[in-house]
Structures are given as structure tokens and as C-alpha cells.
């Protein structure tokens, strides 16, 4: 039976289903509903967990690190400035190989102060060593959080589940609630072999010289690369139990596509709508949603490029002085694969601007004809800026 639910509520419910044992978070719009809901769940005793209120996001992550290190299933959630404030400890969580799961509500970074959707907050944390997943809809939120716990605990790496501010956090949609007994079978209790234990004292994250430092980093890099396949395997198992699949990439009509539009998060739905319209106009277009940005889903990306001549990337983010972050990532991973591709990077829909199917169609037209309203700066085209 389906239930109407917002993204924040779905995330809180997923944490309840996963039976997290430790939650520490600091409220921030548009994540606030999520932690309020979780504190209610824990307050009502629906899961046996400790909810720690802290004075900042930095402390929230620091306490999650401690809790995870003693072997607790750990959760936190934040957004935008809060995520930026966590930056230092994000490296620590990943370096200590702690399977913390975090939900980030993608919100614009200040200044100027803005509450609406933007992916720069999470994309600027892509080098911290966290796996990053970007949700498509509210159903994807509840499913990906559950998959994230199993992947994280198996790989001993932290996972960040991202959902677009307001498009998911505050949007109610009917979703299927997974059955608790089946979730329990899918997700076994967390029982790490190595943990902080007074009876077996160890130091974690100690000083390390040049003799081992690179080797340790190499191992983490290897394990991170393997996550694309691991996620796929776990998502397949989840699919067999719950009949829903959360793939590393989601391709739509790309098989024969000469033009592929790439995006992350909720914009993928809009792009699919635009693709159908372009197909009616006999434009051989397809859509590729990258649900994973770290590790970068190279396999999935390349397999969608069989017939592609043009790639349009829609970035809800920017790296100032370069271009959209996603555009760079896509280019870097296709450079050795298909040199003759034409790239068109659009920076669009940030700070509360909606991206509609009409917008996407316009971007595609401008990409193919070279003529349109988006303003060029360097290699990126900015839609909807004042002339």
C-alpha cells in the first residue's frame, strides 16, 4: 500500500527501518523536518537509538565518527552551509573507513543567502572520500538509504544520499513503504570486526609516515572504485526483494541516441519529458541520469555513448573559473573513450530557478544550432541570466 510522504519523512522512515543506533544532527533548512521526525521516532522508542543534540554540524559528524567507531549504525543529515562546515571531519570519517550514512538536502551556498536547490554544496565535497548518490524521487530516497547502509557497512566507507531541496525534501509523493521484516533480512545488524574497544585497545587514524601513507590511500581509492559494482549488486538484491531498482546510472532512450542529456537529481525526470518531446520532433535524443557521482560511474556513462555525437550536461552547480562540475567529470571520463564527442555544458536551475521541459528543449536546440538565449562564459552556457 502506498503512502503520501515528503522526502524528509521518507529519509527518516528509512533510518527507522534500518534501525540506526545513533543519530546526531544539527537542524538546517530544508533538512529540519528530517531530524525533527527522527527525534520523534527515537523519542517514541520506535528504534533503540541514541539521539545526540549538538551545537554544530562539525560536532554532529565528529560524534558520528565516535559512535561508528564503537560499532553503532550511525546517521546524520545536513544541508548546504552545514555540509560545508562538516568538511574537515568528512575526510576523517572516510579515512577512518566508517560506514556512516548521511542525507544531504542540496541547497545553494551563501552569499547571497538562498534556500533553494543547488548541487555545489555536495559536489564541492566530492574529494572527501564519501560515496555520493543523488535521488530521483521520494521513493528513491527511502530505497537508497537502505541500500546505502548495506553498501557502506560492506565496503567500510561512508555514503552521502543527496536529495534536491524542496523538489524532494518538501514534496509529498505516494511511495511504497518496505516491509520491516524484509528490510531486516536485507540489512543484517552492523557488527564490525575492528572497533574501538576498551578490552582490545587500538588507536585509529594514528600518525603515519611516508612508508605506508600512500599505500593506505591507494587501498581506499581501490575500494572506492569498486563501489560502482558493489552498489549494483546490492541494488539488484534490493530489487529482487522489493521490486524497485536504484542503478548507478539510469539511461533513458540512449540506445540509438545521437544526443545525450546528462543530469543528476530530480532534473532527470524533466529531461526525460523533454526527450519524449524531442523524439516527436525526430531528434534522436536520450537522457542519462548519473545517480552516483562518487565513485564516478564510468561504466554506466560510457555504455550510454554508443551512438552519441553530442553530450549536453546540465549542471545545477559551478566551479568558478572553470565550468559546471558535472561537465568536467563527464568530459574527463569520456576523453579517452570517444574523442569526437561535442560537449555542451549548461549551468541552469540554481538558486530557485525551475528547469522545465521547455528549458531542456531550448538547451538542446542551442547546443545543436549554436544559437540561443543562454550566455556563454568560458566553456559553459548559463541559462536565464539577465542580458
Amino acid at each position: 500500500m502506498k503512502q503520501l510522504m515528503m522526502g524528509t519523512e521518507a529519509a527518516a522512515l528509512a533510518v527507522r527501518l534500518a534501525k540506526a543506533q545513533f543519530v546526531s544532527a544539527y537542524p538546517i533548512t530544508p533538512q529540519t523536518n528530517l531530524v525533527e521526525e527522527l527525534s520523534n521516532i527515537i523519542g517514541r522508542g520506535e528504534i533503540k537509538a541514541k539521539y545526540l543534540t549538538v551545537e554544530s554540524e562539525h560536532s554532529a559528524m565528529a560524534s558520528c565518527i565516535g559512535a561508528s567507531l564503537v560499532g553503532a549504525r550511525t546517521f546524520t543529515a545536513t544541508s548546504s552551509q552545514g555540509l560545508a562546515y562538516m568538511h574537515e571531519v568528512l575526510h576523517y570519517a572516510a579515512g577512518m573507513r566508517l560506514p556512516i550514512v548521511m542525507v544531504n538536502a542540496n541547497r545553494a551556498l551563501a552569499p547571497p543567502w538562498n534556500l533553494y536547490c543547488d548541487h555545489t554544496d555536495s559536489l564541492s565535497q566530492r574529494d572527501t572520500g564519501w560515496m555520493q548518490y543523488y535521488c530521483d524521487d521520494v521513493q528513491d530516497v527511502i530505497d537508497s538509504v537502505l541500500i546505502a547502509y548495506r553498501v557502506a557497512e560492506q565496503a567500510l566507507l561512508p555514503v552521502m544520499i543527496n536529495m534536491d531541496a524542496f523538489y524532494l525534501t518538501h514534496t509529498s509523493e505516494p511511495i511504497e513503504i518496505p516491509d520491516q521484516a524484509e528490510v531486516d533480512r536485507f540489512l543484517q545488524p552492523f557488527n564490525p570486526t575492528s572497533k574501538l574497544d576498551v578490552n582490545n585497545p587500538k588507536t585509529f587514524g594514528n600518525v603515519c609516515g611516508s612508508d605506508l601513507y600512500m599505500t593506505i590511500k591507494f587501498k581506499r581509492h581501490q575500494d572506492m572504485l569498486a563501489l560502482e559494482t558493489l552498489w549494483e549488486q546490492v541494488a539488484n538484491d534490493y530489487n529482487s526483494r522489493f521490486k524497485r531498482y536504484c542503478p548507478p546510472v539510469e539511461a533513458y532512450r540512449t540506445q540509438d541516441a545521437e544526443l545525450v542529456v546528462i543530469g543528476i537529481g530530480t532534473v532527470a525526470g524533466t529531461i526525460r519529458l523533454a526527450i519524449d518531446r524531442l523524439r516527436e520532433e525526430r531528434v534522436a535524443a536520450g537522457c542519462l541520469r548519473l545517480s552516483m557521482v562518487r565513485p564516478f560511474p564510468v561504466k554506466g556513462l560510457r555504455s550510454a555513448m554508443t551512438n552519441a555525437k553530442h553530450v549536453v550536461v546540465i549542471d545545477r552547480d559551478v566551479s568558478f573559473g572553470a565550468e559546471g562540475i558535472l561537465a568536467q567529470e563527464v568530459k574527463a571520463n569520456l576523453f579517452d573513450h570517444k574523442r569526437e564527442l561535442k560537449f555542451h555544458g549548461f549551468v541552469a536551475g540554481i538558486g530557485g530557478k525551475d528547469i522545465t521541459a521547455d528549458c531542456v528543449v531550448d538547451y538542446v536546440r542551442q547546443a545543436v544550432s549554436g544559437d540561443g538565449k543562454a550566455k556563454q562564459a568560458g566553456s559553459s552556457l548559463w541559462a536565464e541570466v539577465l542580458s
Partner: protein
Amino acid sequence: MIGIRFHGRGGQGAVLASKILASAYFAQGFYVQSFPFFGMERKGAAVAAFVRVATRPIVERGEILSPSIVVVLDSTLLQMVDVTKGVGPGGTILLDYLAQDDRRPLEGPFRIAAVDARSIALEYGLGTKIAPIVNTVILGAFAKIAGDLNLEHLITAIKASVPINPEQNAAAAHASYSAVHWIQGQPAASLESPVQPKTTIQCFAELPTLPETRGVIDWNQTGTWRYLTPVAANKLPPCRSNCPAGMPIPEIIQAVSQGHSLRALELVFSANPLPGLTGNLCYHPCQIDCLRRKIDRPLAIQHLERFIAAQDCCPSIENPPKTSARVAVVGAGPIGLTCGHFLGRSGYRVVVLAAEPQPGGALLGLSPEKLDPQILKLEIERLVRLSNIELRLGVSIDRNLLTELQSGFDLVIVDPSELADISPVKDEVLGFMKSEADKNNIKVILPDLSKELKPFKYSLIAHYVAVGRRIAHEADSYLAGQNRPSPAAQSISSADNAAPSLMSFNPVQIRIERFPADSSRPPKTLGKGMVMDGGQALAEACRCLSCGTCNLCLQCISSCPDVSIHHSRTSTGVTFDLHHCKGCGICAHECPRGVISMEKIIS
């Protein structure tokens, strides 16, 4: 290009030396580069610095792997650091000290030069005796052995770079230039290669997923920074060194202060089996030099002893099983009883004989005001019970007895203080005993008493106890040497060497100012012959400063900045984690009792 590597300790100026050297070469027109190895830079930590010198611009960076010259500022590093690393044939190592016998302290194809840099530094007033500053000194020697460095350029660079004393530094460099020489000799007989750090993880497969560490890691073993090592050793405090009977007074008082009266009684019995008598009769020299006197009043040690002796409990003294060796002790005064007691506790079959019908010898003659006869009776009963010896009283000391003794005993001991009682037949008896003894291979011990102890003086009772224990010790050694069946248990410690392992105690080590004065007046019961109650004894024992004796106050542990001092629930003292102790000396400074001292320990 030539590469130069400096080895030193943080604070010695190895990095400055590398900069001065680079400046001097630079002034001569060379291209130069100088840089430190950036690691755990702290005072005392092993550090390295490098200099490159070339006739062309230098483009490479990073550690110099094959240095032409290695300069060692502190030769104690040779045990920790491989200073020869990368030094090939034709290379040179310059050391800061003169090896004895001109032996090579390092083995390898390189040349070794040495200069007594420490002495030169001290001669010119650079640094302190513990930490002489040798960096500029060693550069003078460097100029001599390197050949291509102009001494005057070096001196100019030194004067321009040192923070203080430019003239002394320059003069010291000059002196060192003249003093350095090549070591021609053979390698030293036992060359110990430095301990190489162990990397536990040898291959990728061994790498754990989590970056976890068990035990200590090489990177934070700050123990290598140490010049001085803390040593915790109990010292001989005034009360103990003054006690004629050699009682472990601080430990006894500590036991009382912890409420362990029985343990206190056991400690008393380790030296003195007649505490009720000494507690009433002794002139208590233990209290004369008590440091507590400087604060308020000396500790009432004698009253504490009386309190312990009056405890209605029995110390659990376990004696070894009796051997077949038999000892006769003639005389049941304090010497005879003490001697018999310790021999009995060592497992010998002991008979103490006396002419009187009561044991106690000369003590029997004391008036009841001086000594309550009931105390004497109870003390002797306890002494006998705990050592399981036999008293044979009212026997006439004559030839018949001696005949009996010669057939049944391995050793006869005569209490000299009781000789007065044997007096009428003394010479005859003794003469007979000695001749018989020789005939029958029986040893007779007739100890000499110092003239202060003759005739018997009750206030010197602790001295008589000490003599008794010393004779028991002698007898035990004799019987063990005779291969007579001798007990396996601990030998009887000699009262003369009450605590031979203890260093003498320096009263200034006790930080009097840390102990508040006690305004309370001594309890009224501290009058003659009276005994404290438990509360009074506890309060009095808690006044003890525990001079020179660790009482686990744990101030050292709470003051150690490196968490490198430990104690376990069962230990009686503290231990140091020398992997991490940097030798800062805070514990020695903080110890209020003078137990911890900083020692120069050369491994």
C-alpha cells in the same frame, strides 16, 4: 655537487648549522640549498638537515640520499639513527666526540673525522653542561675536513647568523678547526648497528581496512628525545636510618594510615618481634630528625608502634617447615628471644634456655611502673607462638646441661647480656663449652657487645633486638655454609644493613612547603604508657610526610604530560613507559617525597 647531511637533536641548532654552512659557501660563489627534514621537531628529538653545494644552479629537491659528508652533532644518536645511510666510499662522517683508543665507532668504507665539540663549546661558554651548543663548533671542524670551504667566510656567516655570543661562537669554530683530526684506528670490537624501526606491515595484503594501530608506533616514540631518565627509588628516610632495630617505619605508618593494622604488625615483625617493649621503653631516635618537626611537631612514631603492638590480632606469618637443624640459645633476654625468634621463623628447631623460671632476662628486673609485667608476658608469648620455638626455663646452666646440648644441637648461641646470670660458673662453663664444641664439632657463638650496651640498659632495647637479629643472621649463614639442613625460605636480613639498597635521602627533596601545618594538638593519650585509639592512630599516621618513600600519592602520574607513568592496583610504586617518556623531569620536580630522581643512564 656535494651533499651534506646534519644529524642532531631538536634544540641543538642542526638546522641553523645547515643555513650557516650554506651562507658560507654562497659567499664563496657557490650555488647552495639548505633545508631541514620536517618531522616531529621538538627539543631532544632526532632531526636532520641538508645542504647542497654546486657550481651550477640546483634544480633537485628533497632528501639527499647519498651525502658526501655527514655531520653528527650528538653521538648519542648513533644508537637510534643510521647516520651512515647512503654514505659511500670516499664519503666522510664528522663526529662530535673523540672515541677512546682512536677506535672507529662506525663501520663502513667512509673516512671518519672527530672533534671534541662538547668540551670546546663549554670552554667558550656555549650552552650548558647538560646541553652544550656545538653547532658552530662543529662547523669549524667541517671547514678543515671539507677543504673547499674558506674559514673566514664561515666565520663571517657564523657571526651574522647566531642569535647571541657571535665572538665566542667564532672563536670556538676557530678552536675546532685546529682540533679536528682523522680517526685512523680499527673498528671498535663490538659495533652495534642502530635499531631500525620496524614496519609491521610488509605487504599490501597485510594492510587492515581501518587505519588502526595496536601498541606503540615508531612515529610517536618520544622516548628517543630523552637525555635524563626518571628513576623511582625509595630512599632511606631519617626515621628509618635512625631506628636501631631497622624497622621499615614509612611502610609501617603507611599501613596504619590505610587502616591496615595487621599489615603494620607484620611489617614490624619483619625487624622487631618485641614492639610492645620497644614501644614503651625505647628512647625513640626515630623521631629526632622527623621532617614533620619543621612544620609542626614530629610524628609520634613510638606511640604508633605501641598502638600496633597492642592490636588484638595475630600477624599471619608463615614459617617454612622445620628442618632437622637444632639450635640452642642460652639466655631468654631480649637478645636471646629475638635471636631464637628469627631462627625459629627461618625453620630451625630452636630451644631457648634460661636459669630463671620466667623468660625476659634483665627485663624481669624492671619495676612495674617502668614496664607493666603483663605487657612483658604477652609480648614474649606472642614472640614464642609466632616462631614456634621451645622455652626451657629454670634449668641450671652447668656441665650436665652442656653435655646434653653437645649431643643434641648443631649450634649453641649464648646471649652475652645474660652472662651476668651465668656468672658464678661463667668462665668454667664457657671454657668447657668451647672445648667440647671443638671436640664435637659444635659451633658456639658468643657475640661481643659494644660497651654502650653493657650493662643492660632498658632504653636501649631496640639495640638488643638488633643484636639478636644480627646473631640470628650470622647463625643462619653459618648453618647454611655447613650444609646443615637449612630452610629454603628467605634468609634473615641483617639488622646492621637494614636497607642496603636504599640511597641516602636528601632532606631538601621533601617539599615542606607543600604540606600544611596541622593545628591540632597531640591527643592526651600520648602520655606515658597510654595507648592511642584507632582514630587517633589513623590521624597521627596520616601526618607522615612519607619522606623518600613512595606512598602512591600519584602526583607524578597526574603531572606527567605524556601519560607515561603507570601503576597497577597491586604495585607498591610507579613504573615509567620509556617508549614515550621524554625525560622532561616534571615528575621528579612534582614528587613531594623525593622518590623520583632524574638520572643520566647511558644504554
